[in-house]
């Protein structure tokens, strides 16, 4: 999905990235073609700024399908739900 909710296909043939900081379940590179902070293709840039920001932010996009997730931040931890790929916690 786009940042506003429209679904987009995965970028075919793009290099893959690994899990971003804060994720409980590490994903394989093949599973995470999207940046979970900005929602852009992981291959579109180094996303170093996103990785740095993610130390103080929960993920907002599903790294597998780019859908915006429903994120609940709690005093201790967070949960993020992708309608397609389920819940992750950190």
């Amino acid at each position, binding site marked *: 999905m786009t*940042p506003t909710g429209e679904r987009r296909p995965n970028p075919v043939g793009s290099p893959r990235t690994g899990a971003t900081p804060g994720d409980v379940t590490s994903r394989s590179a093949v599973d995470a073609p999207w940046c979970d902070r900005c929602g852009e293709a992981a291959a579109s840039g180094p996303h170093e700024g996103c990785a740095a920001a993610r130390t103080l*932010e929960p993920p907002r996009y599903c790294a597998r399908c780019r859908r915006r997730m429903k*994120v609940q*931040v709690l*005093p*201790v931890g*967070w949960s993020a739900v992708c309608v397609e790929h389920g819940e992750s916690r950190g």
Partner: protein
Amino acid sequence: MPEILDQARTQVLENGVGLDQAGVLAVLNLPDEHLTAALQLAHEVRMRWCGPEVEVEGIVSLKTGGCPEDCHFCSQSGLFTSPVRSVWLDIPSLVKAAKQTAETGATEFCIVAAVRGPDARLMKQMREGVAAIRAEVDIQVAASLGMLTQEQVDELVEMGVHRYNHNLETCRSYFPNVVTTHTWEERWETLRMVRESGMEVCCGGILGLGETVEQRAEFAAQLAELDPHEVPLNFLNPRPGTPLGDRPVIDGKDALRAIAAFRLAMPRTILRYAGGREITLGDLGTRDGLLGGINAVIVGNYLTTLGRPATADLKLLDDLKLPVKALSATL
């Protein structure tokens, strides 16, 4: 020693009378070489008029995102292309969050909702949530639900909410640059009703929204006029997709100058570190602020962003020999 600090030593430290707008501006304009002296004086003022205890609080978002207002700093506005989606917290999760907060030693738990003002659904959720927390957790419950009607104020008092947060966010003259969907005066009216109800007033704002130093001083003076029980001091953490998303983070020394100045304007208030301190001040700056006028912290995460682990802040307080305020001291 700059004249303003000599004046503050007599007026604020000895007599407990806060600096006026001109005095605050003079502190905000102090050159870097006098910053340490300003912070030391602010710390003395805090110790003299508030004592050494630090009030620890946790906050949680009961209703996130989808807000109809256009506060330009906020990622929860439904009017911007922010990635934050609307989500509600259920009661069991709310109680769990309150328990986790209490386990850190915090005495305050603030329930926050991103709304213009509460509707019937939100008030029902609050009623059930506050009752469940009060039944299971030893902690003071505060709330932040936007603008209220008199009936809602009365209902919150009846629920046992002891403090209500409603930030003015910035000074009156700059507010229209930050929010256009409601006015500063509307916020003030809610604060007036809260004060008259007997609930404690919690009112602060965000520095680094683009206001001038003069407007920062105006804001401190307006808060001092309100005389809130607590002033949460946030520093802008620019959020993607918001109108202020590209603003620079406030300079760390300016943030520390503001902490000292706000303390010297309000010697008796609870001055709380809130959002943005991690990116503005870092660990060293956080320590400087705690020895420069701050006497309360939000521990753990914020509403949509993450904070330092509570254990890190509690260790820092221990290192600084600043005791955490006990629940018995707040009742």
